[in-house]
């Protein structure tokens, strides 16, 4: 029966080509607009580290006070000062913890004919690699001992290893960074969490993959300043040491807290730390601390661009209008065939069969709209770079799940739109229709 109704549906569509084309186009455009904007939204609201997003936290401590945070609506600064980060690291209350900041180091190839270049680089602690589940091809992260020894070591990414060492095992080899030699201890496999949760502050959540990590302790020894944002509420005074002692915020502090009790304990510890600073006279305000996990942090940092949200909303409204349009057109189409329905009903077709026939006919329209929507989505993907930032746009891809979703949304929404017209069709009184003929 399904095949027969499907055939009937296709035949009926061919009978009013203009009306059918209008419906298919409405559904196609509506679905394509929704899918294109949804793909961007999906990419930007992605959970970058699902296995651990509820265990990794960003502690924030308000070291600026209420006077300097009017623009932040009472929130502490979104980065940490050196003195707070180092004090918290030293007390080591979390099983794993790290401090990160981006570096502007340049890589100098051994071959003097090749130009120096920059890759995204972070200063970090040894725990980083285990905390963020960073995969390795060769070697591994450096150790806590090397942190303490302020060792001049480096972990490099796969791309950089391919570029510098043709993909060979480069562990133990030397890497020249700004004229200093770093010993490579590990080569990461492809690792590119999106959004870039650990440095959403500087990157806005989207940047090229990180290709280089060096120990934080060594970077501080070398007085390497941050390649990212630095915010001060007062002049730090001249020189590096004054800068480290200042209230300038520029560091990302991350902790791993596996259990609920760990999290509660750390939260109260953090409040205690701020209270201690208040007692010591450094903070002239009550403790104001936060502890956000990965998703809360990305949400707070507003990693999903406003453009993505607004356009998703507008595109959704667009789809709704297309469906209202489809309801009207289907109604017209079905009611035109009142006499046909009357005949069928008179010949013994039940209401249920009328329902089946017309819903299947509607789904053929939906499917055709879905196919058109798919083509338009594919074309639209090429245009995404026009609307969104490059780094965001390239995450929006037409993958299998999006193809399926496009078709499903098209068919399901058309079926929803078809319910009312179909119900009206099934209400047709056979006797009345036959009589008027």
């Amino acid at each position, binding site marked *: 029966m399904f095949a027969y109704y499907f055939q009937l549906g296709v035949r009926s569509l061919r009978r009013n080509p203009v009306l059918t084309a209008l419906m298919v186009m409405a559904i196609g455009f509506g679905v394509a607009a929704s899918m294109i904007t949804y793909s961007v939204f999906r990419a930007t609201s992605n959970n970058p580290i699902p296995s651990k997003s509820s265990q990794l936290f960003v502690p924030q401590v308000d070291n600026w006070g209420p006077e300097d945070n009017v623009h932040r609506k009472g929130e502490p600064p979104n980065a940490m000062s050196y003195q707070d980060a180092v004090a918290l690291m030293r007390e080591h209350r979390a099983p794993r913890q790290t401090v990160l900041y981006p570096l502007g180091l340049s890589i100098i190839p051994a071959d003097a004919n090749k130009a*120096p270049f920059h890759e995204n680089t972070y200063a970090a602690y040894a725990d980083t690699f285990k905390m963020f589940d960073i995969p390795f091809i060769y070697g591994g992260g450096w150790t806590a001992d090397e942190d303490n020894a302020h060792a001049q070591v480096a972990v490099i990414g796969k791309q950089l290893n391919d570029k510098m060492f043709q993909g060979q095992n480069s562990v133990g080899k030397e890497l020249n960074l*700004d004229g*200093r030699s770093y010993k490579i201890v590990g080569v990461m496999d492809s690792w590119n969490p999106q959004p870039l949760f650990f440095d959403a502050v500087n990157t806005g959540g989207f940047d090229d993959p990180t290709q280089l990590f060096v120990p934080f302790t060594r970077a501080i020894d070398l007085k390497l300043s941050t390649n990212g944002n630095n915010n001060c509420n007062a002049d730090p005074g001249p020189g590096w040491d004054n800068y480290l002692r200042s209230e300038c915020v520029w560091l990302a502090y991350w902790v791993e807290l596996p259990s609920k009790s760990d999290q509660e304990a750390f939260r109260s510890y953090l409040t205690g730390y701020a209270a201690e600073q208040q007692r010591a006279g450094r903070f002239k305000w009550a403790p104001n601390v936060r502890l956000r996990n990965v998703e809360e942090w990305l949400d707070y940092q507003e990693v999903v661009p406003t453009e993505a*949200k*607004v356009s998703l909303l*507008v595109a959704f409204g667009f789809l709704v209008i297309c469906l*209202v349009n489809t*309801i009207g*057109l289907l109604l017209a189409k079905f009611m035109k065939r009142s006499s046909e329905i009357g005949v069928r009903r008179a010949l013994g077709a039940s209401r249920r069969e009328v329902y089946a026939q017309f819903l299947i006919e509607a789904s053929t329209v939906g499917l055709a709209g879905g196919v058109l929507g798919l083509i338009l989505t594919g074309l639209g993907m090429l245009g995404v770079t026009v609307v969104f930032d490059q780094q965001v746009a390239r995450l929006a891809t037409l993958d299998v799940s999006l193809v399926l979703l496009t078709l499903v949304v098209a068919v399901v929404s058309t079926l929803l739109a078809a319910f009312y017209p179909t119900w*009206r069709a099934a209400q047709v009184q056979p006797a009345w229709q036959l009589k008027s003929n």
Partner: protein
Amino acid sequence: MLQIKPILAALKRHKAGTILIAVQIALTLAIVCNALFIIQQRVDRLSRPTGMDERNLIAIENRWVSKKEEDTSSLSRTDLAALRSMPGVQDAIMINSFPLRGGGWSTGIRLVPDEKVKSKAQTTLYFTDDHAIATMGVKLIAGRNFLPSEITSVSPREVKTTPQVIVTKALADKLFPDGSALGKQVYMNDSTNPPATIIGIVERTQVPWSGLWANDFVENAMFLPVQLTGDYAIYLIRAKPGQQMNVFKDAPATLIKTDRLRVFSSERGVRTFEQVRANSYSTDRGMAILMGVICFVLLGITAAGIVGLTSFWVGQRRKQIGVRRALGATKNDILSYFLTENLMISVAGVVIGAALAIGLNLWMVTQFEMARLSMIYVICGVIALLLLGQAAVLAPAMRASRVSPVEATRSV
């Protein structure tokens, strides 16, 4: 025109179709109004002037590799000399940032040396030299330019203030609304720093940020006669007319020839100012295009929907139309019947739609920090949709008016 009663009676028999058209018009109006408003806001933003003569400008961002900070000031002097002596180059400067670049330096300015007094204005700081006005192509409208002897070389960590500063007119007016800024003293950063004297005023220079948050001080800029040291150097180059592309191609090579231990970043290493502008406003432009496409398609689909449903009604009522014609109704009567019917549905739709448009905007204001919708958009949207409805209904209505009175005698 006294057809309103029969039209209402007829519409009652087509409740579903009537409601669907009205709803579609209402939703379309709500979306189109807001989309047009977004377009206008974005276009406003991206057509703001930078205050510079943007033609023939090139920006180069350079990072020194393994150099000591002390040495960078002489390195950049060598670079500038090399750039300025290039045949296609009119002038060049080193500057810490420039309009539309993105990152930069901002600070509060006080009129009294007291931390407790709120700063009078927020401004961006441009650290550069006496070639800046000529290179950037900004207009000096009062006072004088820096003298070569006033230029100093300071580390970004040590920079305090300078005896002389040049400000934009917007900043001058904000600090001294009575127009007496020239020669006055101002305090920046830490109030323990000595004051700076305003020696010149330029017509307009935009801040480096194009984001919404900088809207409050978009033309507040202050120039300081300082060349910052450090491993990052930004050069702005003014090419001679017609030489921009040559300089764009040759300048990086010229710099590498003076010293090869440097990196031009892949994203903003070497750019023409046209590229800078395009990068800075790419999202705004894209958003405007997207909203424009959506409006266009939406209006098309709504019109198509009206055509479709009205055609169906006309088809259904051929017999009644035939009867009316047989009883003496003219073609015009039939035409105006359908036009009036559509107008009544559309009016109901736009009334609901106007309310929806304002509601949607109010909601977006709370969610996305958007501005309040101006009523002019609602009015324009209402007129546009009423016209669209009438235009869409015209073809089916014409067809209806051509129904022959003979139809009355035919059964179906």
